[in-house]
């Protein structure tokens, strides 16, 4: 346990100092951290899922607080929580199925009056939860299977409330299996995060045609792989890269593209409007995708999206599933943004007297604003390409619902209540 705490603290410091670049790296490291948290977590015989959830939440809350703008952290925490719930659910349903088989022969701990009813219902419940394991509850399943609402609370809390069950042999194997399954699933998640580029890039040929002119801003590994994949398939096209002040990641991307043999033109950010009339498609990476279909992107892309809209150029966002955030944004330009150091824009030497907050005159004459992100509203986005395929912005809420359980949307409050 202490070594996990050390890991967590280490990661927290990294997050706070913004040492981790990019949401993919953050997501992967978060998932790895949570995996070790889970593996180190001692699981009680009762309520294993609850214990795991609590442990993950406790860590998750800290991680999210360390960098609330890095939504990938929260996404991964929620995904892991969802994984725990799902694994628990599938185990329980399996157990119930087994239980139902034995229910005919011997009596249950529960009151006998309900027993008959329960066994009748449980078949439906098993079917419903089996379906749920594949798909999270949708409005349709909720409506058509009323019994599910009876069955689910029962099953999910089954680990906790039935002391008698835990004594049985298959229960103990179940606890071990739960943790094992969860870790397996987290490993899969990490795998997914690592390979999302490839899955997105596979779709490149479907979207890039011959002699296409593509504009992008800043640098994104996903975009790089996407473009390269199209190049690999013998498509020839040109890429305009806006340099993406103040970090000038566009230079990096341009260099990468050039070394991979793509025709690349590097432009200043201000020339985006001038160039976009000759561009066929804007392809950008995202920092996070919100549930309403809006995107948090590197600064400057809102301008690009507006210009693209003006010239009816498709604005395509590439996003791995770890970037899908189940939250709906409120005032994201300010609340989901962070201001970086003014030194990226101005030399401190020149303006030091004007920037001085300690001079006592009140507010200084000069402010330097250097935001890191932009918010692109869903109406400006033409298409999302995720590792599961292309989607409309209006569909994102549904896609996101696949990955998260509704209970975890607010990580912090639940934890606060728990404490």
């Amino acid at each position, binding site marked *: 346990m202490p070594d996990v705490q050390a890991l967590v603290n280490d990661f927290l410091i990294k997050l706070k100092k913004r040492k981790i670049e990019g949401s993919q790296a953050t997501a992967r490291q978060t998932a790895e951290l949570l995996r070790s948290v889970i593996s180190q977590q001692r699981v009680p015989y009762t309520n294993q899922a609850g214990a795991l959830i609590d442990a993950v939440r406790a860590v998750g809350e800290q991680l999210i607080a360390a960098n609330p703008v890095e939504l990938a952290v929260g996404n991964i925490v929620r995904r892991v929580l969802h994984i725990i719930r799902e694994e628990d659910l599938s185990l329980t349903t399996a157990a119930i199925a087994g239980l139902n088989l034995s229910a005919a022969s011997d009596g249950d701990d529960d009151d006998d009056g309900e027993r008959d009813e329960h066994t009748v219902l449980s078949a439906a419940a098993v079917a419903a939860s089996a379906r749920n394991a594949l798909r999270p509850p949708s409005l349709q399943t909720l409506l058509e299977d009323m019994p599910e609402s009876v069955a689910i609370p029962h099953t999910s809390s089954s680990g906790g409330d039935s002391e008698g069950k835990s004594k049985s042999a298959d229960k103990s194997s179940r606890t071990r299996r739960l943790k094992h399954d969860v870790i397996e699933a987290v490993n899969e998640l990490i795998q997914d995060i690592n390979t999302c580029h490839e899955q997105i890039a596979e779709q490149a040929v479907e979207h890039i045609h011959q002699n296409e002119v593509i504009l992008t801003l800043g640098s994104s590994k996903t975009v790089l792989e996407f473009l390269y994949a199209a190049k690999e398939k013998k498509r020839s096209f040109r890429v305009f890269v806006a340099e993406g002040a103040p970090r000038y990641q566009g230079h990096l991307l341009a260099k990468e593209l050039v070394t991979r043999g793509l025709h690349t033109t*590097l432009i200043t950010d201000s020339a985006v409007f001038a160039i976009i009339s000759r561009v066929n498609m804007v392809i950008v990476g995202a920092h996070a995708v919100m549930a309403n279909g809006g995107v948090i992107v590197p600064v400057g892309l*809102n*301008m690009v999206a507006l210009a693209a809209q003006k010239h009816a150029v498709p604005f395509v966002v590439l996003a791995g599933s770890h970037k899908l955030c189940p939250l709906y944004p409120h005032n994201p330009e300010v609340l989901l943004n962070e201001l970086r150091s003014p030194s990226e824009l101005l030399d401190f030497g020149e303006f030091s007297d004007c920037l001085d907050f300690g001079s006592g005159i009140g507010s200084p*004459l000069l402010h330097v604003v*250097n935001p890191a992100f932009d918010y692109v509203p869903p109406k400006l986005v033409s298409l999302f390409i995720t590792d599961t395929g292309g989607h409309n912005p209006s569909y994102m809420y549904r896609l996101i619902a696949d990955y998260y359980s509704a209970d975890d949307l607010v990580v912090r409050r639940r934890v606060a209540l728990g404490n």
Partner: protein
Amino acid sequence: MDPRRAPRTVSDPKVRKVGFFTDPPDRSLPGPPNHPISSFPTSPPSTVDNSPPSAGNSLSPVMIPPPRHSSSILSPLRRDPPEFFPLPASPTASTTFSDDVASTMKGRGVAAASSSLPGGLLFDIAASSVPASGLTTVSVVNNLPIEKGGGVAVEMQDDQSSRSKSLKEKTTKAERRALQEAQRAAKATAKAEDGKTPAAASGAAASVKSGKSVKPPPSQKNDSAALAALEKKAGDRPPEKDRKKEVPQPRMQFDDKSRVEKAKRRAVVKQTEARNRVELFRHLPQYERGTQRTELQSKFFELDPVHPAVYKVGLQYLYGDICGSNARCIAMLQAFQEAIKDYSTPSEKTLARDLTAKIGSYLSFLIECRPLSISMGNAIRFLKNRIAKLPLTLSELEAKATLRSDIDRFINEKIILADKVIVKHAVTKISDGDVLLTYGSPSAVEMVLLHAHELGKQFRVVVVDSRPKLEGQLLLHRLVGKGINCTYTHVNAISYIMHEVTRVFLGASSVLSNGTVYSKVGTACVAMVAHAFRVPVLVCCEAYKFHERVQLDSLCSNELGDPDVISKIHGREDINFLDGSTNSENLQLLNLIYDATPSDYISMIITDYGMVPPTSVPVIVRDYRREHLWI
């Protein structure tokens, strides 16, 4: 004829040209290459044009000694030997040049008045009889003196000139070339008919010799008709001529190999083309800066034809020491002023033509340093116009003084005074508590901000900047130095900062006649985001920068800056991703200088004529330019 209609009837000049010149078949006319219609000059305009000499007297009260050398006459001067223009350049006329705005206006009025005179018909008959009789043009000249009957030789001269003018006037709309031919023919026949009218011939000869030999008319009244005719021309022809000019002459397209070759041979400075040119911008010149500089410096003592002042300004352009269209324009004009001061006309050349050529060579030098901005183009047009309109009677010293004062006047009126007016207008749009956003370092906007601050208005300024020039930092320095509360950010953060902005003030390099604002690259982005956030966009632009060209995108005409500044980021040595790969064949660096902001994004253009919507720009270009800008 209503002179205002003249520019609209396009076929008019061609009709007359055809009627007048097709008939003498013996003369092979190389001039008018395309005759779309062949009809006779009995068209009403010709009637109008020929205001009769006899009727001229009655008109004298309204007459103001005309700007004879107005562009109509002038422009042939530039192209063709000037001797063919027997212009009685009176010093009185020259004195009125400064008022020529008014005189042109009146001239139009006079012309309109003269059109109603019956004498015009008479003349017209004479004119129209010419082709019918199959005589050369001079026959008209010879027919006419009957009406006037000038006795004194001077008067004869005068007459002659007036007639030749009226002759010319008939052909005002004809190709100048054709006119020339006709006059040559007239000269020839005049010589042939020497015996008949020796006085007239001598007059013609005198007039042929040079403008100087022609004495100023002894009586204004006598040739007032001619003046009227001239006035007419002044009123009528400039639009015509301007119109031809106004169709912007095709710019040099740098993807045209043969022309580029030609241009290179002419070039003072050897320029090596940048290696990796962007495919989309093949039509724009792009040279390597480094070689240009060393080349220029080494050639300092060899560059014989370039005046040192011009050379200095050229270098300043090249190094980017002078930027901003106003500053560049003023620097150029002042350099030309210096050059004109030191100019002396070579023998056997006329000042007007030689100086125009000189200025042209300076200009091509400056263009080699950096392509002209539109505002500079306008200023050049003004200057060339002034040179062309110089009365031939002026001594060289006087002419130079006139030109220099003209340049001063242009700088003062069109730039400095215009800025003051703009500031006065724009300040009314700033109120307490405003957050004003500006992009780059527009000089006019800076003046507005400083003035508003002086007035004690409480506001905050957001300075948005962009690479590679980072001019905003200079503006920021100056504003903060004056104690204005500022926020500084870069163009990418525009969407973030726009939430708090209440007004956007932008500068412009030019405003094109479809309302497009042609300005520093990135202006379009700022205006677009402001428009998306429903923030009014005010563009401060002096009217001399307006241009009748239209443009829809930022690609067809633009300027390419030094591509190398893109790969190196000033002050950020940590970013050197591109260090090794700038030579790669696949990498192109594009450094656009300007972009075109669509007029939809512009709420208002603040100019010296007041605050107008972008849709009014063509109106200003059309209606005000002639009277106020170019004369």
